[in-house]
């Protein structure tokens, strides 16, 4: 093994999302002399970012006073909130929960927002390296995090070196800030290694699938924000939809299915597509066209699942830690505030020590604490959840109780132990026809001659045990059709279509045996989201 080339920085930020960029920018705002870099696995900033997104602007005001005078390319003021309960054929308007009052907020594309932030970060002196994946952690002699190792490029599927092989360099820094977003692969390793989650509940997640449409002229009502619960999900499954009306006849819509669902036969992708066919939604989309699509896991664990966010040599911020506010369905303002808080902390000492305490005393965690019982209230079903939500909202989270979270992968029921509800789903006609067609609109691109980046520890389990117990749920929970059980002359096999992967991390989370490990592919691979 040759000695890797080394670059030195004061702070390394992994991930050019809202948390990472805010942290890097604020570091330079506080101390211009600091050397700060941001490593981003997407080919360009924003290309792996997917969010609703209705954004509370106050955190942006703090980071970039005056941003409203030169707003990001997609930025539509919120006009009106609607909250609906859907049945298969009908719908009922519900009172808008106060957390979902969006007056003063903006509908944006988080991907476009990050792409817009990046040059401003560079203008502040931040070095941003899109197209480079932080593949591993570099540890110091004392076992502290001492930086990251960039993934090698030009490695063939069988692990051999191609003519284009370039060894990834090491980047060393006193502090590494993990801002990888939900279920970051390095964050996951560090949480395990430093047992950062030993005093909290397991993190819980949802899978969000989103499409951006251009609808027929006049159908979009810019600023309208619509959310729904109910159909097509059963009452035991938490989740719901969003439809955000943008300018230029564009509508962003998506569906989040909580990953603690029990039904091994459920396909979150199919649930989203079914939602689009609801009689109240379908007319909006008919005659329109999909512009882009994608999927990303979201953290739902909130306050009680927040791991310790510091370890020797490193911090977790944003959704790598899990600061998203589920009842608000918003994480961006939390991510930006958390990133800025980390910057303020590091500008003082370039040490991770003491950050966790600061974060827990900050408005970021106060906000999470207040709503901590709302999401787990839904563990007992839709009606119990709505009841808890009302109580917790009225009392402002001051009741002396904290409902607990459970690990999503343990919640799946074996086929024999579960009789699925009659979903009564409809014949679909709106595009995309299937997951492969959906992936096309994610413009996902992986060099195909590279090692499979979805590491399945033991495929024998897939072929025998899982087939029997759960019917290979990976073939359904993956929104990109990465996993297929293929029968050919060599028998029944798991085929991993790694090139389809949109980096959503659902498989890493939901696989009931926890034998799938999502690692980063060659830098620059993955989806190329446009305005998601």
């Amino acid at each position: 093994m040759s000695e890797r080339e080394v670059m030195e920085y004061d702070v390394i930020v992994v991930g050019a999302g809202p948390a990472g960029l805010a942290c890097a920018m604020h570091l330079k705002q506080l101390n211009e002399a600091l050397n700060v870099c941001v490593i981003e696995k997407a080919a360009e900033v924003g290309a792996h970012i997917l969010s609703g997104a209705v954004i509370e602007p106050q955190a942006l005001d703090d980071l970039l006073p005056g941003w409203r005078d030169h707003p990001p390319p997609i930025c539509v003021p919120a006009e009106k909130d609607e909250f609906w309960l859907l049945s298969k054929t009908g719908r009922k308007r519900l009172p808008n929960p106060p957390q979902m009052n969006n007056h003063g907020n903006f509908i944006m594309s988080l991907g476009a927002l990050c792409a817009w932030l990046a040059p401003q970060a560079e203008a502040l002196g931040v070095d941003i390296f899109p197209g480079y994946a932080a593949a591993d952690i570099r540890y110091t002699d004392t076992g502290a995090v001492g930086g990251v190792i960039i993934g090698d490029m030009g490695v063939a599927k069988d692990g051999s070196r191609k003519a284009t092989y370039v060894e990834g360099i090491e980047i060393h820094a006193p502090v590494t800030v993990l801002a990888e977003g939900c279920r970051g692969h390095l964050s996951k390793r560090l949480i395990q290694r430093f047992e950062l989650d030993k005093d909290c509940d397991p993190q819980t997640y949802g899978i969000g699938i989103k499409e951006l449409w251009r609808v027929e002229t006049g159908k979009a009502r810019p600023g309208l924000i619509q959310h729904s619960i109910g159909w097509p999900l059963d009452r035991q499954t938490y989740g719901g939809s969003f439809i955000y009306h943008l300018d230029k006849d564009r509508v962003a819509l998506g569906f989040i299915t909580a990953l603690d669902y029990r039904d091994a036969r459920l396909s979150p992708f199919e649930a989203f597509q079914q939602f689009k066919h609801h009689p109240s939604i379908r007319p909006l989309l008919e005659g329109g066209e999909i512009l882009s699509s994608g999927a990303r896991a979201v953290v739902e664990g909130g306050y009680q699942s927040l791991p310790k966010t510091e370890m020797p040599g490193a911090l977790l911020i944003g959704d790598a830690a899990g600061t998203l506010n589920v009842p608000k369905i918003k994480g961006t303002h939390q991510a930006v505030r958390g990133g800025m808080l980390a910057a303020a902390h590091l500008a003082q000492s370039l040490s991770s020590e003491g950050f966790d305490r600061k974060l827990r005393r900050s408005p970021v965690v106060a906000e999470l604490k207040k709503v901590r019982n709302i999401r787990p209230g839904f563990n007992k079903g839709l009606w119990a959840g709505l009841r808890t939500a009302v109580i917790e909202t009225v009392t402002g989270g001051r009741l002396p109780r904290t409902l607990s979270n459970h690990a999503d992968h343990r919640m799946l029921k074996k086929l024999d132990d579960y009789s699925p509800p009659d979903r009564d789903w409809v014949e679909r006609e709106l595009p995309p026809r299937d997951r492969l067609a959906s992936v096309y609109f994610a413009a996902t691109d992986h060099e195909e001659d590279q090692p499979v980046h979805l590491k399945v520890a033991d495929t024998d389990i897939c072929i025998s045990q899982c087939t029997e117990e759960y019917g290979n749920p990976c073939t359904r929970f993956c929104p990109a059709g990465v996993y297929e059980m293929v029968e050919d002359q060599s028998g029944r096999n798991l085929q991993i279509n790694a090139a389809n992967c949109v980096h959503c991390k659902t498989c890493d989370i939901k696989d009931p045996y926890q034998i799938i490990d999502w690692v980063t592919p060659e830098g620059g691979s993955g989806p190329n989201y446009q305005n998601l």
Partner: protein
Amino acid sequence: MSRTLIIAEHGGGRLNPATAKCVSCAADIGHPVDIAVFAETAADIAAEAAALTGVDKVLTIEDADFGQPLAAMIAPEAAAMAGDYSHVLGPSTTYGKDLMPRIAALLDVNQVSDIMQVTGSHRFQRPIYAGNAIVDVEAPEGAPVVATVRTASYAAAGNGGSAAVESRAAGAERPQHSRYLDLKSEGGDRPDLQTASRVVSGGRALGSADNFELVYRLADKLGAAVGASRAAVDAEYVANDLQVGQTGKIIAPDLYMAFGISGAIQHVTGIKDAGTIVAVNKDAEAPIFEIADIGLVGDLFQVIPELEAALDDG
């Protein structure tokens, strides 16, 4: 001076069929059509050109320097002739793509590349972004129109003509800086996937690398190149370089035959400009049938041998 000159492409002493397609495009422009043949010995080629329906005159410019297709040699001579013409066309083959812009530059005009439709004497449609958008282009009046013709958009002109053949002396100065060395046709017996006029492709329904032999056999019978869907490549039935589609090769053969390929959008992107698409699939609902010109619902393990037999019979 409303007159069109077509620069003939030829090889091995024969006229390349792309020239006849340019004649069809020129017919849409509507002016009288001449064909220029630059060659060392032009008689046979000129005779073929003169037989094309709708050609007025064939001009032969014979010189040892024109024995090989070197753009730097031909362009000055062609540009000198252009004064008599409103339009100068060449095929959108590697020959035409190499030569025509050099002529256009000498005439101080931009070239209209890859005409797919003529909508007026100076108005054309052409593809950009690999055919993902079509633009209307207008060339200025009062300057020669130099253009290449997208061969896939035109049928060859018929052979009902009897144009006069005139010989012209070469007059322009020719450079000494370019020399032709040789031409090797590629590969072994099977044509190259990228440029083949027929392609037979197989999908995962083949079931194994061994079964892919069926596809090879049919391809050889048809003189076709072999392609595959990504699913077949991922299942390791064939090598990656046979992959057709978004992440593989984008091809436009005259005939594309897909066996056991479902027709995912990623695959279809790679064949959208093919002339005729034939699909054979067990699944009548397969998306490939939505874009296939000829579809057959059936088991490829039956259909391919039957096809071979039918081809042998007739």
